[in-house]
């Protein structure tokens, strides 16, 4: 592998992606974490361009870095949950997590980089050349609407179900609100029939004593 502009670009993007991921894990502020994740998604989208996937790269930037992260930021700011105190209930959890992660990353790097490893994609052999419009909107669309037409239609059902689910889960009508307040005094009457459908009966919730 010689030093070409593509190789330099790959390593810059890899460092940016990993550094943004680490910064996301370390930042105590959830808004900063979301913005670091946007940097990570953008760097990975440019890697998609290097891999001849221009359509997916644009979808990544639009849907992931755009829509999904805006939804995250919206919820963080709506809840006012940018800063949570870093509580530590299980002191042994952090070192154990670090050790297990090191083992996992060692396994990944072994499979990916050691040619003798089972399942190695073959780093010596360069990937075959592909046609110029590989991964473009034309090719993606023609395959999507022929071979993958049924999964594509199922996706619309999935999105509809997710939309209805999000609306139902976050709905807060007055009966449910008063119901939640009464539940803290542990004598919730069974009048709110809709709320009793949406949440478990009070005996289930309040029976357990820590």
């Amino acid at each position, binding site marked *: 592998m010689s030093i070409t502009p*593509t190789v330099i670009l790959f390593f810059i993007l890899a460092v940016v992606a990993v550094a943004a991921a680490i910064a996301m894990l370390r930042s105590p502020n*959830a808004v900063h974490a979301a913005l670091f994740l946007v940097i990570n998604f953008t760097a990975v989208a440019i890697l998609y361009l290097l*891999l001849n996937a221009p359509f997916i790269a644009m979808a990544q930037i639009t*849907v992931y870095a755009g829509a999904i992260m805006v939804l*995250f930021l919206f*919820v963080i700011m709506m809840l006012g949950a940018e800063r949570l105190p870093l509580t530590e209930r299980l002191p042994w959890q952090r070192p154990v997590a670090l050790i297990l992660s090191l083992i996992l990353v060692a396994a990944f790097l072994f499979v990916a980089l050691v040619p003798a490893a089972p399942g190695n994609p073959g780093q010596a052999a360069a*990937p075959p050349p592909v046609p110029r419009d590989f991964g473009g909107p034309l090719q993606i669309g023609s395959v999507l609407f022929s071979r993958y037409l049924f999964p594509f239609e199922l996706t619309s059902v999935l999105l509809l179900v997710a939309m209805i689910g999000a609306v139902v889960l976050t709905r807060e009508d007055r009966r449910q609100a008063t119901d939640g307040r009464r539940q803290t005094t542990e004598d919730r009457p069974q009048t709110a029939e809709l709320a009793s459908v949406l949440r478990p009966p009070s005996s289930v919730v309040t029976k357990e004593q820590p």
Partner: protein
Amino acid sequence: MNPTDIPIGYYIALSGLLFTLGVLGVLIRRNAIIIFMAVELMLNAANLAFIAFAREQGAVDGQLFVFFVITVAAAEVAVGLALIVAIFRTRRSIDVDEIHMMRG
């Protein structure tokens, strides 16, 4: 600019590294929203592996799988954030250590 300069194994290694960072985030963070973001990081790493293998095989099917993963991730984020909002309304917290109402 020749994209075939970089072996596919390097992309897979980067994907594994990002996936591990996502796992680490789920394990050590206690803020439910940041745990959710770490799950997105893992999905993203898996997408990178899909794209890299699609390039290696010269087939566009891997890219379509990523397309579907992005769609499912959008639905998942909508429902997951709705759950977090609902939990925050009743418990006044999104610290996962304080949400042990359903523990066995």
